[in-house]
């Protein structure tokens, strides 16, 4: 009974955190929705851990709890891979931005130098 309480409370706490982050616009909706969907599945499971025992048995896994643990790790791994992918894309975007900025600055410097030269030859 204690375990159910601990897991259930953890789930609700996480749910509250996600909702609050979304409310304050600290979390993009595409990520927020993902975590909400996960919690909606996980919270009932934490309250009734035996829910998946039948599925676990057909898969040859000892108990529903182990199955949830296994699936949880697989899911987290996938999320990590996805985040690495997103970061790679972001790095490429910031790289392009940095190059654009440098090119524009070089352009402005060249213009300014040309204008200064014009002024000095006029004067």
């Amino acid at each position: 009974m204690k375990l159910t309480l601990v897991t259930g409370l953890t789930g609700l706490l996480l749910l509250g955190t996600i909702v609050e982050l979304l409310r304050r616009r600290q979390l993009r909706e595409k990520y927020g929705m993902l975590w909400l969907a996960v919690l909606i599945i996980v919270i009932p499971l934490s309250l009734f851990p035996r829910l998946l025992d039948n599925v676990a048995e057909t898969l040859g896994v000892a108990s529903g709890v182990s199955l949830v643990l296994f699936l949880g790790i697989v899911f987290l791994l996938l999320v990590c891979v996805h985040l690495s992918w997103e970061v790679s894309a972001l790095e490429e975007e910031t790289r392009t931005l940095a190059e654009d900025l440098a090119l524009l600055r070089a352009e402005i410097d060249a213009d300014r130098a040309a204008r200064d030269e014009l002024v000095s030859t006029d004067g």
Partner: protein
Amino acid sequence: MVNGKRTLIIIPALNESGSIADVVGEVRGELPGVDVLVVDDGSTDRTAAVAAAAGAKVAKLPYNLGVGGAMRLGYRYARDHNYDVAIQIDADGQHDPRYVPKLVDLLEDNDLVIGARFAGEGDYNVRGPRRWAMVMLSAVLSRVAHTKLTDTTSGFRAANRRVIEMFASWYPAEYLGDTVETLVHTARRGYRIRQVPVAMRKRMAGTPSHSPAKAMVYLGRAFAVLTLALIRR
């Protein structure tokens, strides 16, 4: 102008305020009428200011992108300003600008010309795992490029308009990507690559890294980069 071609020398530089003025000065002295672009790769010292004072055009990146990032910026600049030839030279003064006309000559029949260190001239040599890495890279890349390449990690290269165009939109930022991966990519797309022997000089400033452990890591990374480059599209 080199041999009637509008030429841009690209020098990627990271904290090279000690040598950059000499390198820029030497290039401008040896190759009058050639534009020099120093790409400051997020230096924390006065590299950009020193280079500008020495008469180079300067593009300053807001933060460090690595050699690959600096080089793509250089090629983008070359493309946007309609240069016929872009030549990259290291900022540490190892590359002798007197070889530049020779590289440009060979661009008549080739798209990318590499100034190679181990091809006869000079007495630059390395040993141990670093050497094995270079031998492996040379063997594989020579096959891919259908020409003899002995120094695939050389940063002394001349590119014609077609290659400038390609490098401006595609240039890997990651380690060894600027040398090994660009060669695989260029060769795979049917561009003609050639190497020219050049003598390499001592660095004007800075020290090379020499330790057996680092050399082993280098071998491993070279192998990984090469494998990735070969299986990539």
